[in-house]
């Protein structure tokens, strides 16, 4: 999730003043109320631990649970190692070295973030499977028949790990790049004067200094891996997310699905704990606020060539190749986007994404502003709770929301029957409202962190200066806050918009009956092995995601600590 990365890069500088803190007011109460609503899925899952299900839990423990845990661990190990090597290596190259195309790679290496892993999986499967163009070409060139030669199976654990590495390494790249930029001059030059070679410098100074940032990057990538549903489902790898979906969809056991989720929650909390610990440590790693222009190593000949190859491979695997494949697939047998069904799907996707983005931004502004003006620790805690959902997979959020929503529906029906003699049916279950709530739970952190960091740019003294210069509170918000924060609000909205466009599992579980989005269409077509047709909705999702990401990546690249 891009927002988490932005959060890590731009830590909010909010601090309490020594003036009275307002612990209780209607504004704080309201912000706590929103926080509790956003914490509903977790509360729902925790609550499920005390519920009696349909008796599937012991069966799950005996049969599939060890496989879910084992597969999830193998995935995490493989993805963690891969993203660390590629992310750290590419970050070191673009920060410390001059080589051909460095300026291009600096921002382009982020682009795989725009492509959902499941879309990449569909593209690779279509091209690399035995009936795909690559293997056909091999057979045509060698004259060998099907099964007479070795070719890696993309639908495997190795294939899934490769795809996750290709699309998730930017998390490590982004954070490590910033860490290298911040530490570089002060520590590295001392190390050089003490006799370290460039490589020795990297090993003994840069890497240990950047370690907290690297750990945070890896953890974010692992969270996304655990949260993924589309890729592992398509590749037939049984993990927690697919297990939760199957338990809910096939066995119809909502309680067992929630109990399975609670086990995944333990995994996630462990990752969150490590991430928080590393992030806390990272704050103390800065020893100076003085920065000078970096002196980069000039790479020539084969070193230059190797650097270009090292940066090209992840960019190609995670972005260029899938885009070309999707485009090729779409051109060869894709759907017509002007088809009324597609128009409806695009409209649905855009409606959901726009609504979620608007609500998320408005709510974020409210929560961030209340925490600031009220100077209340309660509101601060509320905001932390509201942002907790970023670590929780969509499948779990869906299961976690369905339980309380179904309970509310049941309650309303009982009360309506008791007082008015009729049952209104399921008001919230399977409604757009519940789906938007799921998106808010999942992506609130993205929006809240971005809004908080742009609010952090406005110092308390700026607000006070405006007041002493004759502007009342509302006019101060209009003349000072709004223009300074407009870029941040736009960014927050864009990120949520793109994330919602890509979101699959929560939408799959919670969407209203017969309500399809582009992500659902891509999933359905891929599920039916109509991969070529799946390229069309996938391409639209990527196109929507890539434009804001280019804008953001350019903006991120322009920022340089200390300049």
């Amino acid at each position, binding site marked *: 999730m891009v927002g988490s990365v932005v959060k890590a890069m731009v830590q909010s500088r909010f601090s309490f003043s*020594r*003036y*009275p*803190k307002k612990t209780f007011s209607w504004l704080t109460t309201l912000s706590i109320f929103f926080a509790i609503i956003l914490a509903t899925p977790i509360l729902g899952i925790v609550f499920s631990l005390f519920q009696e299900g349909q008796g599937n839990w012991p069966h799950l423990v005996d049969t599939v649970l060890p496989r879910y845990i084992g597969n999830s661990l193998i995935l995490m190990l493989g993805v963690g190692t891969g993203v660390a090597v590629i992310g750290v290596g590419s970050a070191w190259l673009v920060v410390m070295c001059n080589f051909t195309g460095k300026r291009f790679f600096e921002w382009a290496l982020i682009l795989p973030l725009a492509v959902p892993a499941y879309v990449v999986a569909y593209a690779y499967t279509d091209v690399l499977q035995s009936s795909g163009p690559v293997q056909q070409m091999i057979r045509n060139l060698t004259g060998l028949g099907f099964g007479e030669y070795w070719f890696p199976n993309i639908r495997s654990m190795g294939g899934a790990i490769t795809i996750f590495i290709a699309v998730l390494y930017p998390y490590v790249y982004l954070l490590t790049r910033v860490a290298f930029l911040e530490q570089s001059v002060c520590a590295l030059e001392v190390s050089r004067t003490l006799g370290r070679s460039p490589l020795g410098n990297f090993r003994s100074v840069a890497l240990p200094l950047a370690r907290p940032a690297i750990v945070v990057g890896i953890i974010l990538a692992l969270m996304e891996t655990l949260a993924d549903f589309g890729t592992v489902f398509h590749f037939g790898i049984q993990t927690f997310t697919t297990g939760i979906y199957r338990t809910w969809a096939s066995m119809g056991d909502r309680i067992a699905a929630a109990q399975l989720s609670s086990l995944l929650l333990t995994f996630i909390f462990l990752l969150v704990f490590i991430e928080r610990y590393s992030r806390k440590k990272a704050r103390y790693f800065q020893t100076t606020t003085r920065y000078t222009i970096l002196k980069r190593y000039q790479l020539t000949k084969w070193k230059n060539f190797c650097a270009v190859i090292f940066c090209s491979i992840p960019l190609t695997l995670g972005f260029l190749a899938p885009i070309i494949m999707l485009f090729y697939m779409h051109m060869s047998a894709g759907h017509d986007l002007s088809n009324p069904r597609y128009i409806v799907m695009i409209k649905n996707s855009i409606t959901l994404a726009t609504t979620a983005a608007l609500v998320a931004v408005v709510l974020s502004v409210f929560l961030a502003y209340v925490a600031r003006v009220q100077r209340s620790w309660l509101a601060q805690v509320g905001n932390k709770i509201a942002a907790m959902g970023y670590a929780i997979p969509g499948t779990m959020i869906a299961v976690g929301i369905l339980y309380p929503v179904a309970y509310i529906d049941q309650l309303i029906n009982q009360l309506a029957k008791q007082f008015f003699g009729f049952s209104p049916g399921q008001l919230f279950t399977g409604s757009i409202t519940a789906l938007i709530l799921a998106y808010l739970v999942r992506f609130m952190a993205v929006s809240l962190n971005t809004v908080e960091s742009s609010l952090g*740019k406005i*110092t308390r*003294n*700026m607000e*006070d*200066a*405006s*007041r*002493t*210069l*004759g*502007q*009342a509170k509302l006019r101060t918000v209009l*003349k*000072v806050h709004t*223009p*300074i924060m407009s870029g941040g609000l736009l960014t927050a909205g864009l990120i949520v918009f793109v994330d919602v466009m890509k979101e699959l599992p929560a939408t799959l579980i919670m969407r209203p009956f017969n309500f399809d989005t582009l992500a659902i269409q891509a999933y359905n077509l891929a599920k039916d092995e109509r991969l070529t047709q799946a390229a069309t909705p996938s391409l639209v999702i990527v196109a929507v995601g890539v434009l804001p990401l280019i804008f953001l990546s350019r903006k991120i690249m322009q920022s340089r600590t200390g300049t």
Partner: protein
Amino acid sequence: MASGITLENISFHFDQHIIIDEVSFSVDQGDIVCLLGPSGCGKTTILRLLSGLENPNKGRVLLNDREVFGQGVNIPTEKRRIGFLFQDYALFPHLDVRQNIEFGVNPRTRQDLPHDLDDMLKMVDMVDYVNAMPHTLSGGQQQRIALARALAPNPEVLLLDEPFSGLDTALRVHLRQSTHKILKKNQVTTIMVTHDPEEAMFMADKIVLMQHGRVVQMGSPRELYLQPKTLFCADFFADTCAFRAKVVEDKIVSIIGDFLLEDLTTSIANRLNKKKGTGDSALQLFFRPESLMITIESESQAKIDSGLQSVNNGKAIFKINDVHFIGEKQQVDIMLMHRDSADASAIETLHSPVDQDSLLTLAISAKTKVDIGSLISISASAGDILWLEAL
């Protein structure tokens, strides 16, 4: 003279922390008052209470005899007509210099102002920067723009919160001179917060010294420096030296010399005589290090000790510990020890500034003399400070 700012019994507290405790003072129109004190003593809070950014728990605030806070009265900040220069200047980053300065100017009443934008820019010597963005300006330039912005709406009073604190020494000296000139020329009633006594003495018509949310002493810079009422006040402005002494017959006897009671003002001499009558004759002497006058007597032979000189006056050993070059003057660290003390531990180290010219003639004399006129105070017991007026 009419009062520009009046604070009456202002108190401000929260969570059982008393931030401001019964503070009262007033500022005459056109005067500059400096709130001086250590960090956390409540100086900035006074400015925030005055401007309405925080509300006192009790008391009254009057600006140009108009009550802006009091029983049932609380005029909002934006209507108090206050200029506020913040410590970090708080320039708006999305506006250029012109827009920053004009931010507080109401377009409808602009023509009624005694000055326009160009006047403000000229006043702070920033005419060439009218279209510059704040982040392109140096700290000193930002300070001047913030000052112009605070003065542009023609406020009734100006509040300055440590306006020179983030600047280097040379720039600080230059800016405080120019700011003082601007404020005096425009007759702006000003309260400035600072923790630098030298800055306060330079800028202020009156200094209000604060400690733990209370006013310790207020008066002209000269009064506070030369006639401090408390040890805290004496110490805050400059180093003081303290010596134990006792009243014996008609003299104050101390390790640094004896003083005749008849040299003191009558009232103090009377009090000391009374003290003598109680049988408790112990007291303490305080003076500024620069008051220590060191003379050489021919019969005294300087005793060379570790390359530095030391000598005794019959009661104590004076030893020059170190000499530091500090520009126009030299700082001489003199250690004072009991003559008969076996461990020769220092009872006081004096850091006395001495003119460069006197370096060569400087030696410790057998007889050290403190001019009675420069003896700043005598403490008969803790908290009992008697001011000795110069004779």
